């Protein structure tokens, strides 16, 4: 495992890995999201209590689960960076932060849109909503702290400490519906032994969950590549890459010139 992972501490190998993974992530995201969303929104049966408005679950639950998942991934990346001094770990941590923040925002927004018909209010200070809002603040704190430093290596370390401190919030969000008896409904799909949701409703949800995960993976690889190129501009391999890009563009430019010349 160690021998297999260690080369990816080098930025060039990590960049190549991103390039290889990216198309797979995009294909997975597009397939899963289109199947899951169409199945969930058009073909899944109506809920006996909530009618059609329960269908927002197909966006709300995957984004909520993955907003937490992304935070955990970010904290793990920070820990890896701290323990083994991998620069790429910090880079991937900061690549994930805005994506997780957007997922959190989507979860809050769809939750509000779902709450309006069900509870009669856009926003209720219920335990799960509040802890999810704190998660959004934590993401913003990590991003702001990273942005405040000039030296990006130092910034990664500092933001990593903050990301690890914030991990305490994750179990609070997860167990909030069990610890506090509030308005938000209890867990439906995370009970693997006996899920309290009909299978024909569950399958599109799981497919969409996978699709969201692939999507986050795809966007993370794009952002990580950007981050690597930006931070490693002085390295020969990045310059070679840039030179390659420029020569490719240059070979297409003469045609354009010819057209203009005519």
């Amino acid at each position: 495992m160690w021998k297999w992972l260690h080369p990816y501490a080098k930025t060039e190998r990590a960049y190549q890995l991103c390039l290889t993974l990216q198309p797979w992530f995009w294909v997975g995201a597009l397939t899963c999201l289109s199947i899951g969303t169409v199945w969930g929104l058009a073909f899944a049966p109506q809920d006996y209590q909530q009618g059609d408005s329960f269908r927002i679950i197909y966006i709300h639950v995957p984004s909520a689960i993955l907003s937490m998942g992304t935070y955990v991934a970010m904290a793990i990346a920070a820990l890896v960076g701290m323990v083994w001094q991998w620069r790429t770990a910090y880079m991937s941590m900061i690549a994930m932060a805005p994506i997780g923040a957007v997922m959190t925002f989507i979860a809050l927004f769809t939750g509000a849109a779902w709450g309006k018909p069900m509870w009669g209010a856009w926003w209720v200070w219920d335990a799960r909503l509040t802890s999810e809002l704190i998660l959004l603040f934590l993401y913003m704190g990590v991003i702001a702290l990273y942005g405040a430093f000039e030296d990006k290596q130092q910034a990664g370390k500092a933001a990593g400490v903050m990301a690890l401190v914030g991990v305490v919030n994750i179990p609070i969000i997860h167990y909030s519906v069990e610890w506090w008896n509030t308005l938000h409904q209890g867990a439906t799909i995370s009970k693997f032994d006996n899920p309290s949701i009909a299978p024909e409703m569950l399958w599109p949800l799981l497919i969409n969950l996978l699709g969201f995960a692939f999507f986050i993976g795809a966007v993370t690889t794009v952002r990580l590549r950007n981050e690597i190129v930006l931070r490693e501009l002085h390295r020969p391999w990045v310059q070679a890459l840039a030179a390659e890009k420029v020569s490719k563009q240059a070979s297409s430019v003469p045609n354009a010139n010819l057209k203009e010349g005519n």
Partner: protein
Amino acid sequence: MTLYHGIFKRDMHIAFKQKAELVQPLMFLLMVVTLFPLGVSPSPDTLQRIGPGVIWIAAILSSLMAMERLFRDDFQDGSLEQYMLSGMPLPAVSAVKVAAHWLVSFVPLLLLSPLLAMFLNLTVDMYIALVLTLLLGTPLLSLVGAIAVGLTVGLQKGGVLLALLLIPVFIPLLIFATSAVDSAALQLPYHAQLAIIAAMLLLAAALAPFAIAYSLKVSQN
């Protein structure tokens, strides 16, 4: 041991030399609390209901102002670097500094609390619960806050960023502390909330010194 005692004495000495920095957060706290009867409603019932929350929020806000003092001067005059070079374990040094900081910035707040409780018409039961949550909760504020102070100490404009980083982390403490006082208002037992705060405090006391030391090293680069 004498070394740590020396650091502690030095910090206390410096704190009492800069009396303005000691008093200002307390004045701020007092003024924030004064705003609520004027802004919300001066009726004793309303004040009693919102009182514990107001005192806790004001305490958190004023602690954010005082928090920056924790490492700023030591960072600027180079004493922090000396601590790192001295060979003393940095987590222990930071624990001593946090303890000194708690004594000079939160103990005055505790002394001020009877006045605040009187302003907001708290009953005796509520006041006892409030003091107990403050006793357990404010060291937690100091310990966790010191991590973020360590991270932002090298930055030019750390003030607002510090609030942005710390307020979300303090929210769970605020929830449990105010719920303890609410239970006390209803004559219900509030051991559970106190136990949770105590558990958080113990966790922070065990881990925070190491996190503070690491964040100081990051800032010192």
